[in-house]
């Protein structure tokens, strides 16, 4: 039993952490949070199911297409919902524009795909049981993203340009960095990460449009607790959240588990609005 709680908890925690990283990557590029992060996760599962199960494509092809879909949505978010409102004096329009976009996609999915959860294909053809792929695929995805981002930031110039934009957007512009393309690329990257989360977690979460609001909330908890823009904090907080949720599930049942998670979340947030670790990047004074 404990093993089941741990493997489910860590697996789902990895999915939450990845959505948290999606939020963070978008935030680092634009200092704005987007409601589309959870929707990206949902699309990863839906597109995976669509391409592989319904359209019969090979797993690898379906996987790449799903990630491409995520990248596209990421870019669309930047162009349609973020860029136009960054210039505006009303700082909070981005909440509304990204909410509108996320809703449009969720509703479209519900109507065109299905209002019921659809099965997600088995990715690797082995028998179920033991430490099953539905558990270790999300963990693998999370590890891959962490390593990948580390490589990106430390060893490529583009990655370091992302860090520069995140730290001091104005200085980066003045230096001549292509700030707009870099922001779009960041959003595309965030899209890929979100879709990956949904794809890797597909078997667990199924292909269901209502995963979007669920992931929007649970994927934000790691950001809120781990600190804005802090990916390491998001991973730790995500794993803790997953474990806490599964434990509560086991002890008091599904519905009260949600209540428990939410109550703890809001208490922590009210006590430490900056998150437990605090914001990773200090704004320049």
């Amino acid at each position, binding site marked *: 039993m404990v093993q089941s709680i741990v493997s489910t908890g860590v697996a789902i925690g990895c999915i939450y952490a990845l959505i948290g990283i999606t939020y963070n990557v978008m935030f680092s590029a634009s200092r704005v*949070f987007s409601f589309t992060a959870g929707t990206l996760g949902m699309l990863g599962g839906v597109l995976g199911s669509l391409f592989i199960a319904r359209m019969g494509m090979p797993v690898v092809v379906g996987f790449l297409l799903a990630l491409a879909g995520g990248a596209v949505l990421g870019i669309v978010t930047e162009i*349609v*919902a973020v860029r*136009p*409102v960054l210039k*505006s004096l*009303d*700082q*909070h*329009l981005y*909440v*509304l*524009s990204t*909410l*509108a*976009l996320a*809703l*449009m996609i969720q*509703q*479209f999915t519900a*109507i065109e795909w299905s209002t019921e959860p659809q099965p997600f294909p088995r990715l690797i053809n082995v028998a179920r049981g033991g430490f099953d792929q539905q558990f270790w695929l999300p963990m693998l995805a999370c590890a891959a993203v962490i390593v990948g981002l580390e490589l990106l930031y430390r060893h490529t110039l583009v990655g370091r340009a992302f860090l520069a934009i995140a730290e001091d957007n104005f200085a980066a512009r003045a230096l001549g960095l292509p700030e707009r393309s870099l922001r779009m690329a960041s959003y595309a990257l965030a899209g890929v990460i979100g879709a990956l989360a949904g794809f890797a977690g597909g078997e667990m979460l199924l292909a269901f449009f209502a995963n979007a*609001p669920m992931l*929007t*909330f649970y994927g*934000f908890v790691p950001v*809120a607790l781990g600190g804005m823009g802090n990916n390491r904090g998001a991973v730790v907080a995500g794993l803790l959240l997953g474990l806490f949720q599964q434990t509560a599930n086991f002890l008091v*049942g599904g*519905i*009260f588990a*949600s*209540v428990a998670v*939410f109550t703890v*979340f*809001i208490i922590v*947030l*009210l006590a430490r*609005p900056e998150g437990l670790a605090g914001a990773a990047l200090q704004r320049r*004074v």
Partner: protein
Amino acid sequence: MDTPAAQLRPSHSIVLGSASTIGAALPFLVLLLVGVTFPLFGGGYWGVIATRACVYWVLVSGLNLVVGFAGQIAIGWVALLTLGAYTTSVLVAGNVTPALPPYLALAIAAVVGAIFGLIIGLPALRLRTFYFAITTLGFATIVTQVALAWQSVTGGGVGVAGPIFPKPFSSPWGFYYFCFGLAAICTWMTANVAASRFGRALTAIRDAEVAAEASGISKSALLGTVFLFSGAVAAVAGGLFAALQSYITPDAFTLDLSILFFIAILIGGRGSILGPLLGTILLTVLPEFAAPLVAWSTFLYAVLLLVIVLAIPGGIAEILDFRNRRPLESDRAIIPRPDLLERLLGTPPDAGALTLEQVALSFGGVKAIDGLDLDIRPGQVHGLIGPNGSGKTTTLNVISGYYAQQRGAVRLNGAALPVFARHRRAHMRIARTFQTPRIVGSASVLQNVMIGGTIDGEGTFVESLLSLPRHRRDEAMLRDTAMLALAAVGLERLAPVRADRLQHSELRFTEIARALMLRPAFLLLDEPAAGLSAEEIGRLGALLLAIARTGTGVLLVEHHADLIFDICHHVTVLNLGRMLAAGTPAEIRSHREVVNAYLGG
């Protein structure tokens, strides 16, 4: 009561006119007429739709104050609809308590709603916008989950029967009139709040929070009040909703419904009553026109929201704002009338001096202020100058309570001022302006200035809700005083104009008029001359001198050396957080070190 400003009444009625009030009321009267006569031309099916629109509007009217006026992104307000629906239904059904009459159940639901409205809303005081939006979503989900799980009380997935109201409201049309009546009352009440100091204060919190604090507005008190009210009406709407549905289950309370409420307000336009009312009607009715639209309704709402945000952020209200499309005169001069100041300000109480004693404040390793003494006397203009980074604005922020000094004291007439209590400064008659004008762009100039006098109103929120005499007296008093203040600074002709149409220099003078509403003992100005033409600077100087002559102590933080040397009685020069020199303008001018500090090297 004949206020000193009463002499100005004839001119302001020309400006604002009774015609505009009738114009404003007309759409509501039309809707009232349509609503009352609706059963004559609408069939049974449309009657249900109309009833639903009324029920939704009862909730949205309250939420409008939270979202449209206070600017809080409360997306999950359906939680209160759910609470109200279940509370009313369960109390009437008598599963848990002895069966209660529906009206009593509805009233209890309102109380429950008020309490939970406060609980759900209060995180807004601590959390950033996006965070707060997410928490309201969480609340909405939790409430629905609890309804699903608490089978013994709510019937779980099976649900519970909604209340039935006694005759004459038991028939469909009877119930329609009941809901319509409540909707009309809610419209009236929230329109009263919109035209009260509370409504204006809410918009100030939304668009110019620092200015709201400087005017003495307490964000927590006001938001708390609005959450209570909004929660209560949302719960009442819930009870009505349960009666309309006749049977409720948890899946009737979807996130889609929450989104509908929220979007109706934004499509309607923030800071308006009519806009969200039309928005609610539109969104309720739209899906009914074609069967496929029902399935796609939320998609449509989302598209509408995106279009509004990107293209017409002001929503329907902006489209209907014909008055603010009329062009303004192009050659507008600001000509203050300092002679009106005495009537406006009266004689200030003997407040003594405002002093800083060895105040010090560091940010990280940087000493922003390093042991500063300052002495601002009533009736004098005291200039504070210095290069960038010398600590001028920081000093002003310490005096007005935005920063807390780490050492030393700020005293008013000997008594130390509490640190960080920026909204208490207004009560001590310390007023200020800001480096960049902080105004409510979508409100009129007059409304912006009236915000400055918020703390002088005596009526409570409930009195405003019900438009009781004290509320009306407050409004008349604030309006007259604001017109007088605008006349004193030379902007009375722009009183009804939307503030965001004004030029920068006019906004600066508007801020001064707003500050004067406090009849301040001390007026602190943060670089008021920036962006003004030479002529305007001259008029500003004359105005400030006249304000000082009435007994107010003026602290002028400035870059413009000419303005300082022209009107200040006393000048303090700061450099790197310390006082470099202090004295009369003539002394400072010839002070070698000052010249060097300005020129460098």
